[in-house]
């Protein structure tokens, strides 16, 4: 078989021959073809990912395992990660989304954690196209259909529409789980003389058609109906969760891995490599649901809902009983031995014999050339052009509130069970999600953020702002950040201008993480998101996790009270470039987002945390998409009371109310606490901008907007 048909590049093939000291056979070639694909090996992104800070006092288990774990307090850890499932969702939206959710849940389970919450990031094309409607409906139903059945609440997410995602929608699935700090599962703890056990669904030919190589090789025994699309079974996943957690509780397992891309081969070789043991697998012993499967098909199948368990022989019977109890296929498929070889056998014949560490970790990095886009200077030159907008702010405000990316998303979120497990303190539709941990009385705060418009104008600044914007809601609510996970969604790295955008965005994210001491504990990269000459916007997505005690009374939005004084904390002139105002109302993207300002971020963080912990304000919201105007609109709607805004400053009103970026928040402070608020925020830019009251939102020189009109615009009534 030609190595190119396996999807390998010449230098990769040379590396394999050199390391093996011989030519690889066909099965081994296929293994490298899949394991050394971009998707599995991260060969194009590893050099950049080294920029991320990974250590910190809150990190219990960092990058290198299925998911990172941070300290949740009281002897508990939080394992979390976000992962993409973009290409499958474009092909079969329901199953693509469902299996995406299933896959990330298993990553969390593989750390020994019980999944406690999910969030999902959705990026769709033009809101009015039939294709977008078809994809978005399928994806939303898939996320709900899987998440609801498996019993993990979906508590938040992010949705954005832009025509650049028309043919390449994105689905980023986040999951977080709870694990006792001394029970975190590791892939490094297998010992020689353990048994390798496969638990879960039978293995079929799922996902093999989507592997790195051409389908010519699907040999003589090809069946016409080979499944190209992975089909998820959330019921089996639920059983798998309970069975694995029970096995862990009873101490029956020395290591565990979930099976995702490249199935058995990936998970088994990873354990072997990380634990420093050899492994011999007998593929005949794998429970199959299709006939005549070749060794490589069994080894690389991506059939869903399967876990790999490493078990001491004395615990095998107990593990097999658990399989029986939960009606899951459970079979010994191999053993660990001394050494470092990874050996696949079938019917006594050896089909692969490779050094374990070469399979997962041996792919040479690729350093693609980077070139600053030639049109960037032109795109970055900006003059604010407010013509076409009358002085009245109510019209642009209502139009933005009604825009697909900003408007109310209950049509999505009510299809998700956000309350199962009875821990949801703040569910979907808010700047952050809050989950109560029964075991230690703390609240976990979670955000999800992505700013593709800003990143397309200036990927470094956009990346930095994305990271900072994911943290600010935590601070405003009163939570200290513990760590972040990210999903880097980009087009092909082989295009130098696109690779430049990728590198700059990662640099921006990394610098912000370093400046604000937020370790990156896990992540995922999805490249080649483009088709027919149309590439997606650069879309780094970040999920940040923080903690606050339940007794800390989180400071949340939606609680304006009549008579409260409204304060803008932060600068008055943020950035129109990259904002919803520019992208949606002006229909273009020009200029540069704000440059990073770490001192502003830390100054904001300290004061926001104090404001929250001392309960100085009734209601607070960080300024996100749509800036101050949208924040005012949403607060008025949620609180059921209007406000009078009085601002006389030189900044152009459109810029003042609709520019985005920077550490900024809107606070509603009761009269008695105003002096304390002022004392807290002295030394940082802030300004009183108005007062809560009445049943209209009254912006300067604008028609008062009755609450009902605001609400109708936002809800699309």
């Amino acid at each position, binding site marked *: 078989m030609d190595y190119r048909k396996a999807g390998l590049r010449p230098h990769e093939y040379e590396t394999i021959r050199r390391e093996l000291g011989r030519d690889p056979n066909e099965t081994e070639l296929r293994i490298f073809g899949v394991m050394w694909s971009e998707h599995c090996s991260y060969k194009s992104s590893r050099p950049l990912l080294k920029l991320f800070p990974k250590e910190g006092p809150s990190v219990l288990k960092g990058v290198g395992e299925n998911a990172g774990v941070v300290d949740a307090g009281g002897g508990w850890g939080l394992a979390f990660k976000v992962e993409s499932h973009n290409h499958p969702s474009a092909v079969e939206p329901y199953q693509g989304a469902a299996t995406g959710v299933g896959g990330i849940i298993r990553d969390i389970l593989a750390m020994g954690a019980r999944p406690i919450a999910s969030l999902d990031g959705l990026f769709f094309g033009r809101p009015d196209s039939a294709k977008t409607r078809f994809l978005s409906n399928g994806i939303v139903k898939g996320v709900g259909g899987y998440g609801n059945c498996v019993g993990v609440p979906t508590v938040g997410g992010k949705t954005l529409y832009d025509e650049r995602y028309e043919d390449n929608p994105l689905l980023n699935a986040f999951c977080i789980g709870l694990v006792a700090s001394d029970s975190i599962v590791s892939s490094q703890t297998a010992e020689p003389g353990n048994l390798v056990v496969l638990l879960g669904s039978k293995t079929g030919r799922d996902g093999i058609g989507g592997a790195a190589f051409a389908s010519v090789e699907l040999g003589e025994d090809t069946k016409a109906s080979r499944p190209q699309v992975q089909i998820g079974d959330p*019921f089996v996943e*639920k*059983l798998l969760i309970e069975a694995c957690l029970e096995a862990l509780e009873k101490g029956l397992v020395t290591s565990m891995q979930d099976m995702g891309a490249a199935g058995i081969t990936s998970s088994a070789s990873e354990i072997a490599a990380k634990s420093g043991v050899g492994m011999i697998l007998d593929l005949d012993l794998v429970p199959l649901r299709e006939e005549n499967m070749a060794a490589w098909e069994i080894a690389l199948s991506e059939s869903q809902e399967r876990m790999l368990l490493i078990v001491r022989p004395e615990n095998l019977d107990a593990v097999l009983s658990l399989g029986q109890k939960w009606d899951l296929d459970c079979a010994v498929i191999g053993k660990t031995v001394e050494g470092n070889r990874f050996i696949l056998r079938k019917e006594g014949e050896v089909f692969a014999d490779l050094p374990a560490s070469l399979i997962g970790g041996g792919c040479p990095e690729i350093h693609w050339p980077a070139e600053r886009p030639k049109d960037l200077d032109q795109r970055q030159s900006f003059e604010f052009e407010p013509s076409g907008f009358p002085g009245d702010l109510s019209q642009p405000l209502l139009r933005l509130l009604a825009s697909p990316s900003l408007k109310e998303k209950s049509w999505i*979120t*009510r*299809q998700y*069970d956000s*309350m*199962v497990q*009875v821990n949801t303190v703040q569910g979907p539709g808010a700047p952050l999600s809050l989950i109560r941990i029964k075991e230690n009385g703390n609240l976990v705060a979670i955000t999800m953020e992505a700013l593709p418009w800003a990143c397309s104008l200036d990927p470094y600044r956009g990346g930095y702002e994305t990271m900072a914007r994911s943290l600010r809601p935590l601070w405003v609510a009163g939570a200290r950040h513990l760590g972040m996970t990210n999903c880097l969604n980009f087009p092909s790295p082989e295009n130098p201008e696109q690779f430049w955008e990728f590198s700059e965005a990662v640099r921006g994210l990394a610098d912000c993480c370093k400046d604000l001491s937020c370790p990156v504990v896990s992540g995922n990269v999805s490249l080649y998101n483009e088709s027919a000459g149309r590439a997606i916007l650069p879309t780094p997505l970040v999920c940040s996790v923080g903690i606050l005690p339940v007794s800390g009374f989180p400071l949340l939005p939606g609680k304006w009270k009549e008579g409260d004084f409204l304060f803008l904390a932060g600068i008055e002139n943020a950035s129109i470039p990259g904002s919803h105002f520019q992208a949606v109302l002006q229909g273009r993207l020009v200029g540069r987002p704000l440059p990073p300002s770490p001192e502003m971020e830390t100054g904001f963080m300290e004061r926001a945390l104090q404001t929250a912990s001392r309960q100085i304000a009734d209601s607070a919201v960080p300024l996100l998409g749509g800036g101050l105007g949208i924040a005012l609109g949403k607060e008025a709607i949620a609180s059921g009371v209007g406000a009078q805004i009085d601002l006389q400053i030189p900044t152009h009103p459109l810029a003042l109310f609709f520019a985005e970026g920077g550490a900024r928040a809107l606070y509603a402070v009761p009269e008695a606490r105003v002096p304390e608020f002022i004392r807290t925020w002295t030394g940082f830019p802030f300004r009183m901008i108005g007062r809560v009251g009445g049943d209209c939102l009254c912006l300067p020189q604008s028609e008062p907007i009755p609450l009902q009109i605001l609400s109708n615009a936002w809800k699309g009534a």
Partner: protein
Amino acid sequence: MNASVVVFPGSNCDRDVLYALGKIAGIPAVPVWHKDPVLPEDTDLVVLPGGFSYGDYLRCGAMAARSPIIQGVREHARRGGLVLGICNGFQVLTEAGLLPGALLANSNLEFICSPCLLRVERSDTPFTNAYPEGTLVQFPIAHHEGLYFLPERELQKLEDNRQVVFRYAAADGSAGAQHSPNGSLNGIAGIVNSSGNVLGLMPHPERASEKLLGGTDGLGMWYSIKSWLEGGAR
């Protein structure tokens, strides 16, 4: 007093109910695996919790209703013991014939997770004696198949027998089909059997038992049960 919470393959809300009963209501509760043919000996209350037993495959609750434990639940009900079915548990009870009717797909054919207003139609049951009749309570719903159905004649009988205990309602106190989030006939959200010891409802009282999570209207259900059991009336 003791409660048993049945766990089927695919049950999700068993742990939530155990928490609400044990930690909040102070009713000791244990999980019971569906393959056990008998309930623990001193069981006063059996709860069939929400979730997706058997993945909701074939029909919601159909396979769970054929589990060995259901025999034990029938005996318990026959002896006058209390049985509470929540959401998927309600579906199991109808499939098992312990309650009349069936739960069909929501009229909008979508899963709905939402807070929900209910009117308490009867105060004289073991499950609702802590609520004055006609009280409005808010319990969240989260289901795809919550449309309560019974053929016309049987439905009339059900109403005449006053077997409807919870009805979907509005803030002005009105209740009925017009307020069903899922198309349930007559706005029926929860019913009892004719002897009044088996209750099934689609909304989740265990999700309305803590202020932190949005509301405590569900506490009344646990207090009603406690008070009934303490009263010794069986």
